[in-house]
């Protein structure tokens, strides 16, 4: 009886998904669907939050006030993205404190791109252009994700992201048209961020173990390789336009398919960074932990103040 019930619930659930009816927090859902979403949404939230660090590194050293105001607004948006996403994860029953503790203990992952250092101002350009550009490719299809709160968060996020990419492109295009030294800075940033940006889409489809189920549940709407290809196809001409060279000697346009073909991605490097051995993994998690510890007294004071007011 019990089992038959579950089967019937599962059937009705999948029927809704197949008919593009959104799933909302109080609706019945299979436990695996819930767990998959909690994992994906919290990883996404962590990526937004940790993603503030490499750019935060340059706020005080922005070359002028305009650039500084823009970068500050961009990084503030990323904090907002993290908060929308933590809230979305909470609607599934995830505990916010625990979710954040999992990031700090190293149990939870975040996008590996943020474990690369930002060595020059040109990196602010490369990040906005490539990293936010790749993030947009990933996030646009998520606006149609089957889980309502996640899809709605993504709609807000995507609206804000387009300025992120433009401000980055503006920085790098400006440098690329500057003095030879500035152009070299821009090229160097592209050299360092190109491959990690391609890795942001995750392993090849053949290696990606969650893809099939996530596509059936419409948590994922396009595969890693499809999105990566889309990104390469739009980005290569942009680089050419501003006179920069994609650091891939095997890159070529396939005239028949109309798509660019890239050289082999260094997956060994990708997995090393995912495992925690990237150039900045430790620094990033330490910075998050320190922020939480240093802010403790502020949170305690706010709680005490709220308590006092309530008892008045």
């Amino acid at each position: 009886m019990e089992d038959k019930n579950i089967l019937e619930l599962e059937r009705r659930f999948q029927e809704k998904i197949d008919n593009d009816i959104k799933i909302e927090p109080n609706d019945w859902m299979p436990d695996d669907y819930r767990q998959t979403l909690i994992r994906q949404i919290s990883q996404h939230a962590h990526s937004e939050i940790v993603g503030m660090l490499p750019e935060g590194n340059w706020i005080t050293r922005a070359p002028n006030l305009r650039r500084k105001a823009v970068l500050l607004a961009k990084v503030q948006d990323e904090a907002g993205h993290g908060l929308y996403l933590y809230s979305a994860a909470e609607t599934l029953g995830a505990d916010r404190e625990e979710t954040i503790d999992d990031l700090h203990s190293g149990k939870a992952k975040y996008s590996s791109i943020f474990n690369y250092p930002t060595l020059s101002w040109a990196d602010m350009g490369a990040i906005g252009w490539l990293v936010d550009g790749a993030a947009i490719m990933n996030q646009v299809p998520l606006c149609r994700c089957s889980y309502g709160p996640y899809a709605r968060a993504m709609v807000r996020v995507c609206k804000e992201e387009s300025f992120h990419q433009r401000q980055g492109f503006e920085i790098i295009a400006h440098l690329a048209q500057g003095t030879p030294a500035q152009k070299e800075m821009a090229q160097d940033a592209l050299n360092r961020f190109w491959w990690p940006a391609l890795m942001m889409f995750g392993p090849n489809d053949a290696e990606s173990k969650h893809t099939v189920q996530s596509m059936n549940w419409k948590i994922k709407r396009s595969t890693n390789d499809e999105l990566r290809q889309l990104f390469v196809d739009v980005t290569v001409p942009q680089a050419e336009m501003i006179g920069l060279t994609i650091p891939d000697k095997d890159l070529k346009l396939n005239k028949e398919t109309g798509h660019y073909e890239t050289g082999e991605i260094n997956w060994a490097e990708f997995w090393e960074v995912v495992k925690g051995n990237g150039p900045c993994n430790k620094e990033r998690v330490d910075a998050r932990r320190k922020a939480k510890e240093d802010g403790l007294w502020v949170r305690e004071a706010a709680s005490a103040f709220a308590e006092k007011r309530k008892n008045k």
Partner: protein
Amino acid sequence: MSKKEWPLWEVFIRSKQGLNHKHVGSLRAADSTMAIENARDVYTRRSEGISIWVIESNNVFANDSSESDALFEPADSKIYRHPTFYDVPDGISHM
């Protein structure tokens, strides 16, 4: 006390005069003042609102979603509540 999490608040925003407040999401804050200030920063960075309501999430009560069919069924059978139910003869206008 430090372990105790701040309560969750649901945030409602009026985007412009003349429209109703609409649910936009939730956030955590120690009290209502902080919830409103945080809602300003999280949900209205691009002038999305002119008025904010916050309400502690545990004060929101919802119907049981597994029984929504039964809950909403009475309205389904009353098609005469819609103007399209009625025949209006040709030649009659302004109705």
